[in-house]
């Protein structure tokens, strides 16, 4: 049975998918040119078949990994017989070739989703728009499938066949990281759909509320996955790397933050297109930029241009291939934008500066500035080196100094924005409603000044409370206006959750700014005090794992002679890779993390001493909790299928009026 899922079958399926993607790009294009509906409608079935071929191909790779088929080079290099079964499967996407295939698979699934959704109901996707979107997605797929087959074939065979594989990097052997890449990639790749919609809009020369609805929903979906992915990545670096930090402003981390920031801006501006048919050209540009940033992230990580701790096997030949693809996709779309955007009719709904639209414009300006700052900080070192031959690195001090001043007004506007009405808002009643949140914010600002000893961090904490209080207050106010108490529109819940999630993350970051840590050289039985706790190294013993041996420490943490926690940090040694990992022990009560790492072991005659790193991280879990709440908000908003005919109707009326009175 499994014989039909051999590596060659996988490669053939991938080749088939490439051909199908090519036709998905060409046939509807021909249909659109010659106005033949049958050819146009073929786009959907081609997209579905392409996705099925890719699923088959990916499944073949998983089968090869599960069966320990070391005749496949990729598996021989990254797997081993002793590896736990779960990681044999997830290890498929833990390396360059496999992750590219996963990337393509997700893109194929997105195409399939575009082909299958919007068939009936109020938000019916017009056949020509669907075909145009699928043409663009097909073209992107062809490019990356060629890349996969020509430069990074995951099914390449190896001869002679080794008896065992080389094993995976032990750092990646972790359930959190196993599912981090697929989720993150879904986020990255999901932005391809808004991109395709934007290209289709430029091509068609028409943008309307319905287009805004589709772009917003796809953006929210991609954004929610990306949020989840970044959150998981940050959590992984916190508890696996054992450095006690959660974000290092590493180029690869920034490469995911840049699309996230521009994606956040996009989902808000697409909302304006949907509800008010304004900001159209800007939204198109953001949609193009968002996917371009996602792609550049992939490219920069894999070409080795960025000096990062995240290493993929670097190969300049692959770099040139991806750069050419990037040039065609991004460069092409930008040229199309410069050519077509000026002639798009800008007949958007007008709005006063003090209105929901106005607040969203401010939101967009601030988010894009943040995005520009992160982009500058990331690209500055390689460009300085290229142009002036200077090597330098840009790190936390730069990003702290530039991002915090931009985050503060963003949080401020978030509190106001949700309470403003569309078109033209009256400020006085809103300010009355916001007096309670404002008072709460000031109180928490003053309280946190005592606790955090930092003006900026306290200000951020106060503003985070302001956002939560203002969002809750607004939710309560709107709920009163509803006729039924039980039918709260899901978009309101979604907004509330997403905004509170941001605030919770900010509170976590503020708490972490008061974190304390110490590094000690400990003998068995020694006591240390940190952050009001007494930490005692009780014992260290050896533990055997499946493919490692570990030294495990018992640390007893107590406060006022009551035991708070017994922690067991480990230092694992993986013989096969000759590599050690530090397994952090974390004790959390959701208000603070106690965090212990067992480092080097010094044997000095009869005395053995252990290097311990102890951390006290207040509010640390909130950073990731906030991220998950944000993503949850995004997913909830996707279940809300309502589309207001109002905006579209008003726009039609405006168009009709203009035509009537030339």
């Amino acid at each position, binding site marked *: 049975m499994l014989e039909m899922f051999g590596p060659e079958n996988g490669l053939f399926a991938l080749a088939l998918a490439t051909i199908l993607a090519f036709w998905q790009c060409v046939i509807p294009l021909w249909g659109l040119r010659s106005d033949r509906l049958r050819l146009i409608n073929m786009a959907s079935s081609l997209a579905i078949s392409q996705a099925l071929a890719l699923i088959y191909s990916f499944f073949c790779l998983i089968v090869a990994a599960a069966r320990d088929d070391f005749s496949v080079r990729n598996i021989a290099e990254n797997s081993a017989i002793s590896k736990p079964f779960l990681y044999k499967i997830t290890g498929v996407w833990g390396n360059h070739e496999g992750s590219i295939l996963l990337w393509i698979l997700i893109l194929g699934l997105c195409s399939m989703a575009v082909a299958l959704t919007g068939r009936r109901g109020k938000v019916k996707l017009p056949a020509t728009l669907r075909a145009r979107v699928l043409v663009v997605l097909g073209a992107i797929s062809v490019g990356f499938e060629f890349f996969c087959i020509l430069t990074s074939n995951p099914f390449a065979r190896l001869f002679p066949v080794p008896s065992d594989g080389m094993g995976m990097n032990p750092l990646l052997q972790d359930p959190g990281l196993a599912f981090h890449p697929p989720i993150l990639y879904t986020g990255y790749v999901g932005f391809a759909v808004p991109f395709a919609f934007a290209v289709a809009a430029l091509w068609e020369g028409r943008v309307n509320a319905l287009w805004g609805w589709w772009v917003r929903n796809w953006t929210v979906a991609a954004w929610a996955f990306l949020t989840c992915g970044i959150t998981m990545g940050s959590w992984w670096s916190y508890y696996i790397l054992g450095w006690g930090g959660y974000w290092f402003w590493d180029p690869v981390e920034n490469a995911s933050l840049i699309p996230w920031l521009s994606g956040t801006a996009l989902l808000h501006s697409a909302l304006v297109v949907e509800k008010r048919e304004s900001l159209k*050209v800007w939204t198109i*540009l953001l949609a*193009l*930029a968002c996917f*371009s940033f996602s792609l*550049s992230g992939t*490219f*920069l990580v894999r*070409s*080795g*241009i*960025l*000096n990062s701790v995240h290493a993929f096997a670097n190969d*300049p030949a692959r*770099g*040139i291939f991806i*750069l050419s693809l*990037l*040039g065609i996709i*991004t*460069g092409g779309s*930008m*040229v199309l*934008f*410069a050519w077509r*955007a*000026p002639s798009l009719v800008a007949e958007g709904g007008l709005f006063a500066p003090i209105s929901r639209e106005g607040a969203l414009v401010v939101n967009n300006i601030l988010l894009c500035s943040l995005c520009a700052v992160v982009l500058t900080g990331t*690209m500055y070192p*390689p*460009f300085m*080196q*290229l142009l002036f*031959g*200077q*090597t330098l690195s840009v790190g936390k001090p730069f990003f702290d100094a530039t991002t915090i001043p931009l985050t503060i007004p963003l949080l401020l506007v978030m509190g106001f924005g949700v309470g403003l009405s569309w078109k033209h808002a009256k400020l006085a009643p809103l300010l009355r409603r916001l007096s309670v949140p404002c008072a709460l914010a000031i109180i928490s600002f003053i309280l946190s000044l005592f606790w955090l000893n930092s003006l900026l961090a306290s200000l951020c904490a106060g503003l985070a409370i302001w956002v939560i209080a203002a969002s809750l207050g607004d939710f309560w106010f709107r709920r009163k206006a509803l006729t039924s108490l039980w039918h709260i529109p899901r978009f309101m819940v979604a907004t509330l959750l997403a905004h509170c999630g941001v605030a919770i993350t900010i509170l976590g970051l503020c708490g972490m700014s008061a974190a304390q840590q110490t590094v000690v050289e400990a003998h068995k039985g020694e006591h240390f005090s940190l952050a009001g706790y007494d930490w005692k190294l009780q014992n260290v013993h050896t533990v055997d794992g499946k493919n490692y041996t570990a030294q495990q420490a018992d640390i007893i943490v107590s406060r006022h002679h009551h035991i708070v926690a017994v922690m067991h940090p480990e230092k694992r040694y993986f013989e096969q890779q000759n590599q050690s990992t530090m397994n952090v022990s974390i004790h959390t009560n959701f208000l603070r993390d106690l965090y212990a790492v067992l480092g080097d072991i010094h044997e000095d005659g009869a005395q053995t001493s252990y290097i311990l790193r102890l951390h006290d991280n207040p509010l640390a879990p909130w950073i990731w909790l906030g991220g998950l709440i944000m993503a949850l908000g995004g997913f909830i908003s996707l279940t809300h299928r309502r589309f207001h005919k109002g905006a579209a109707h008003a726009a039609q009326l405006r168009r009709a009026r203009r035509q009537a009175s030339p």
Partner: protein
Amino acid sequence: MALTRRHLLTALPVIGTAALGVGFWEMLKGMKSGHFDPHAVDTPIIGRDLPDFPALEGLTDLGEGFSSETLRAQTKPVLVNFMASWCVPCVLEMPFLKTVSSEATIWGIVYKDKAERAAAFIQRNGAPYQRIGQDPQGTAAIEWGVTGVPESFLVMPGGKIVWHGSAALDKDTFLYTIRPMLNQFKEKAG
């Protein structure tokens, strides 16, 4: 079609993208040919005055310590060598340092090491250093911008650093880089 402000504005993203694209292209080309190394660390200390560092204690019987002032006050070039007994490349470097110690003045800085271990190690290798300073906390190393051991610096009289190597000193480096610099100094001095 008249060229409006809109046309100019919408052309901006194209220009930005093109600039980034050309940059990336150049970087990739540079990586292939070896001009561009993203992991390179440069040594901005060359050509500058040596950094101020606290006076370093010497090692008994092997050499007295020194400070930045003593180093500046020298009349001959000095090769400053950061080393430690726990460092494998330092062990390999030692015999070579001994052979060139007749030709160049070498001062050592013991980086993050215990005095007795360092002393035994240096003694065993024929003591190539005229002076030895101890830097048990690695604070002087931070001032010099040392990222690991062994690293060496060539300091001219007056305190100008003319050469920096962040690897074990070998024959080629000495013959083709350091000796010409020493000879140049001798010629100038007459």
